């Protein structure tokens, strides 16, 4: 992780100074989440989005396609087969975009540490802004993680998407180590959004 470039903020992040405050406020309070339940954590999302916990209070909403989504929630372990689709979905999302690693499995493999088919460390493959630990995290933990992400966006620290662009070769190299036929079916080598 040490060889990663820190994102250079001034170039891309703060170009529109005049509208900066208002756009940051809007980006923070309107998070559309890609409806992609990658692992078992998706089961705790349904209570979080429905009447008891109701994340729409925080301006969070599901969106059906990656083009409209701001937030990718990796709900739990990722098998290598899903990782390929997740990278594809992530690259189709439009900037600025954020990733939340949900559950212990995304942090260090969790209880699948010895599984041959799940990745152990999510931030080697896509940049992660916030991790929520637990197996599985309760809806309160999910909401608190989302609130933390909102604070991070407000403080301009949620810069995973810039990091991904600036360290693109590093991420691609890691991804190719796991996904053996990377260029085979439909995976573009370049970042073509």
């Amino acid at each position, binding site marked *: 992780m040490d060889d990663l470039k820190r994102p250079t903020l001034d170039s891309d992040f703060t170009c529109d100074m005049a509208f900066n405050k208002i756009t940051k406020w809007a980006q923070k309070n309107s998070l559309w989440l890609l409806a992609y339940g990658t692992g078992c954590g998706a089961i705790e999302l349904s209570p979080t989005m429905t009447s008891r916990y109701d994340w729409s209070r925080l301006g969070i909403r599901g969106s059906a396609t990656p083009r409209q989504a701001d937030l990718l929630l990796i709900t739990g372990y990722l098998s*290598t087969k899903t990782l390929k689709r997740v990278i594809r979905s992530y690259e189709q999302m439009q900037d600025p975009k954020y990733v939340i690693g949900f559950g212990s499995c995304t942090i260090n*493999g969790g209880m699948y*540490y*010895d*599984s041959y*088919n799940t990745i*152990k460390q999510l931030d080697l493959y896509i940049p992660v802004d916030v991790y929520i630990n637990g197996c599985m995290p309760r809806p309160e933990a999910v909401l608190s993680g989302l609130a933390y992400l909102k604070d991070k966006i407000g403080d301009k620290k949620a810069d995973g998407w810039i990091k991904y662009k600036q360290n693109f070769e590093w991420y691609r190299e890691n991804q190719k*180590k796991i996904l053996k*036929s990377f260029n085979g079916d439909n995976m573009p080598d370049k970042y073509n959004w």
Partner: protein
Amino acid sequence: MGFSKLTETKVLLKQYFKDIISIEEGGEQRLIIDLQSKDITSMINHLKDFMDFKHLSMISCVDWPEENKFEIVYILTSYSKNIVLMLKTKIDRKNPKLQSIMSLWPQAVTYEIELNEMFGVFFEGNDRMGEEFILEDWDDIPPMRRDFDSLEYANKNFKFRDERKDKKIIREFISEHYDEWRKK
């Protein structure tokens, strides 16, 4: 009630198939039958058509590397008799081949593809052998075999986060003291 049907089925099967290696009861409503691999298709055919074992619960495989064998297990259920049969047969591990039963049950296809992918067992007559079913781009030996070490593969391929400094392995410690703690 179930017991008498169980005995009856046992006797019937013994009469019909002389080549059965062994047949025993495995608890209530369970029969465990050992067969030779050549008999398996005719046996299942007979069970399905004439003895009302209409429901295929699963096809499974157990690996016995010590004996150099794969043991394929067919689990059939008869709803009218309330009996679950476990038909077992051992096949050579070097050249694991068996007749497919996809003509009897369409859902057997997926079980067979999975065994083909996970153990490398080849089912003759199933035209979808060798298809990628669960795994993608797999380049090692079939993963469910006993000689495939999952942790080793994970260590080789995936990168773990650095361990915590205060990490202790307490499993052996608990194991040693387990009995004296439980006495309290």
